């Protein structure tokens, strides 16, 4: 009996030890942009986009695994590696692109903060500046590390979507069927449909996540030898993210889409998906969860962007440095937050639309980052015996090609 208990405790400890960078990244992935995109996908297209979930999960696992392997084997960040292997000019282009797309994501996080608190009747003109300042201070003061666990715990909110999905009595058969069947060919002529597919990929496999995950692996000092455990952390994180995503889509499909509510204009609309679970209080639950997710990601995105850019371009970086020692780092960080928040103050800004749009931008930029990651993970001189397997290359290159094709299709179908 005792030995069995010990066995279980050991297992539990092992599981907890595994919860690391991969799992955290995956959780941050379900941010404001993610929640709005998945909600909109379910509301607009019902179950018919569920087929994307399995391929996206596979691609996500492959890409995240590549990022963490790169970090563990080389001990360097993604932007460092791009700089060292591809020179200054290409790095500069990638970094500018990264700043632009990440900026869009930061705007989405502030949109999440604004719209969640608007459900409580608070004005965004007050909330957003306060939140921006709070985030700035939180990170610069170094308090972020101690509250990361609070954010993580609060991420348990996502479970409510699973429960809501279960209570909403969705058509399980149809949902399951939609998940495993091929998409209808008619979709490729539909601009809105392609736009949403790109957004789904972009929000789930966001470019910034690869930089962030690799940096976390390096920061944690994980080396090639300890890498096996991290792999499980990554896989677990990816699966968790996408299970939640699936349930958000299903919950929205079963409530919003089923009732003919096909366009999510605000957070109040999106909150309706939780009605089966929380009834009148659905908006409370949704607001709390969205607020947490947005604030979590808003604390990570600007700082991880500043790190990646400064490391790639060779500027001093690090919160242990003084402002005078690392001016570019601090300015970049500050400007991303201030401008990101300032966008929200534009009167009448459609918050959900902007959030989804930022995820489309993620999807468009993804192939660029992926190509660099692919070249790096296949560099024998850099990776030694840890280069990509053929299967991984096939999956990742397919992702690149598909995303480029989808982008072209989107431009062609746009009228």
């Amino acid at each position, binding site marked *: 009996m005792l030995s069995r208990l010990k066995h279980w405790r050991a297992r539990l400890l092992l599981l907890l030890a595994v919860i690391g960078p991969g799992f955290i990244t995956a959780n941050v992935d379900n941010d404001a942009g993610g929640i709005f995109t998945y909600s909109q996908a379910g509301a607009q297209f019902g179950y018919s986009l569920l087929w994307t979930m399995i391929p996206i999960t596979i691609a996500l696992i492959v890409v995240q695994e590549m990022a963490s392997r790169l970090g563990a084997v080389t001990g*360097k960040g993604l932007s*460092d590696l791009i700089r060292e292997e591809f020179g*200054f*000019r290409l*790095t500069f282009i990638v970094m500018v692109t990264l700043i632009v797309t990440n900026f869009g994501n930061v705007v989405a996080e502030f949109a999440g903060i604004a719209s969640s608190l608007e459900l409580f009747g608070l004005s965004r003109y007050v909330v957003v500046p306060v939140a921006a300042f709070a985030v700035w201070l939180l990170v610069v003061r170094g308090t972020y590390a101690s509250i990361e666990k609070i954010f993580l715990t609060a991420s348990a909110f996502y479970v409510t979507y699973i429960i809501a999905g279960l209570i909403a009595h969705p058509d399980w058969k149809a949902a399951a069927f939609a998940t495993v069947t091929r998409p209808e060919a008619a979709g490729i002529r539909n601009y809105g449909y392609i736009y949403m597919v790109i957004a789904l990929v972009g929000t789930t496999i966001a470019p910034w996540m690869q930089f962030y995950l690799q940096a976390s692996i*390096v920061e944690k*000092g994980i*080396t090639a030898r300890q890498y096996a455990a991290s792999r499980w952390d990554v896989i677990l994180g990816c699966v968790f993210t996408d299970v939640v995503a699936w349930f958000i889509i299903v919950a929205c499909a079963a409530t919003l889409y089923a009732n003919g509510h096909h366009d999510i204009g605000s957070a109040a609309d999106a909150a309706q998906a939780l009605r089966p679970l929380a009834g009148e209080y659905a908006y409370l639950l949704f607001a709390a969860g969205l607020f947490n997710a947005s604030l979590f990601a808003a604390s990570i995105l600007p700082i991880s962007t500043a790190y990646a850019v400064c490391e790639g371009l*060779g500027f001093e970086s690090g919160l242990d440095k003084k402002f005078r020692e690392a001016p570019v780092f601090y300015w970049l960080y500050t400007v991303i937050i201030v401008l990101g928040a300032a966008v929200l103050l534009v009167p009448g800004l459609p918050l959900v639309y902007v959030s989804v749009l930022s995820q489309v931008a993620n999807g468009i930029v993804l192939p660029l980052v992926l190509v660099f990651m692919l070249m790096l993970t296949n560099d024998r001189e850099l990776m030694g015996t840890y280069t990509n397997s053929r299967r991984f290359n096939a999956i990742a290159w397919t992702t690149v090609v598909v995303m480029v094709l989808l982008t072209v299709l989107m431009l062609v179908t746009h009228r």
Partner: protein
Amino acid sequence: MSLVALSELLGAPVRGATGAVLGRVREIAIAPQDHPTRIAYLIVRTADGERVLPSAVLKSCGSTVRTADDGSAWEKYSASDGVLLLKRDLLDQQIIDVHGRKVVRVNDVELDSTPVNSHVVLSVVAVDVGARGAIRRLTKGIVPSFTLRTLLARIPPRVIPWAYVDLLETDPARRVKLKIVYEGLSKLHPADIANIVEDLPHAEREAVFETLDEEVAAEALEELDPKVQVSIVESLDSDRAADIVEEMDPDAAADLLGELPEGRSGEILNEMEPEERQEVAQLLEFGEHTAAGRMTTEFVAVGDHGIVDDAIEALRQFEGSREAVATVYLYNVAFKIVGAVPLVKLAISPATTPLSQLAEPAVTCTADTPDDDVAALFDKYNLVTLAVLDEHERLAGIITADDVITMLRHRR
């Protein structure tokens, strides 16, 4: 003499004696075995493959490279381990700025070409880590080179003279061939070395610790975060790790070995000299968060009937850390601790003063005293060192104030 940037030279056309273009510059090589800064040869991409252009025939170097011959005598280039290739090994890579005590990334390399007799001597003078190099790289080929030069001249340069550059090379064989010994780095304060090392990827950290002098490596290691210490020691082979651990303070060594997997710490202990091994092994047996786990066994103690001169002599003989000499402990015939003399009192007293006259009561604790109580004692008595006694009231070791500060900081 005139300065030319590596990024200007790369891709520049090479013209022979007749003015005909023979090829374009692809790489620039230094052979550190022959000369530490002088360029040995240029690798030129010609219609007939990659050729080696020896620096002895260079006539001028700038946006065009001119040579005194027609290129027919240039040998075919074959890769060699023993040369430093400026583009591959330096451009965009990280180096240690010894003067600024940090890790920086190279944006460009500045070379100097000085006419000597009939040819020019090309040598590395500095690496550019500032905006000037960055903008030159970014706009090369887009903005006309004349405009670019006037534009760049306005940007204040941020360069590191070549003498203050320590290269990072993870391959030990290549380190030897390229004569990379981290000379500049090893002269820095151990705390600065530690700061630099923390900014490096793990393979580069390992490279530094494989190369540094053992004593310097040990001191730097002590300054590092415990987690980083462990990862570095785990990556070194046991032999080298033991050499470094031997040089560490026994308490720091014990803390470090205590964090390692048991098999690994055993291997390292086995490789150590018997004397050091015994001390560290003893410390390892105590709980980490007790006085015994924190203490060092290197201290100064003399008999209580001695005079100041005896104590000074004992200090002269002492090889342990500087922090430990702040107090000289006195023992009686039974080797029990009966008092303590602060270093200051020794310094200001005549050489013949009996130590018993200077002695103060020694503040002591037992080996199993927990961390909190140790810190409380330091606070209450404003201690610099605290004596840790064994069961016979003999001095087992001492805890120094710097250990307590480390302990308190790590707890946050």
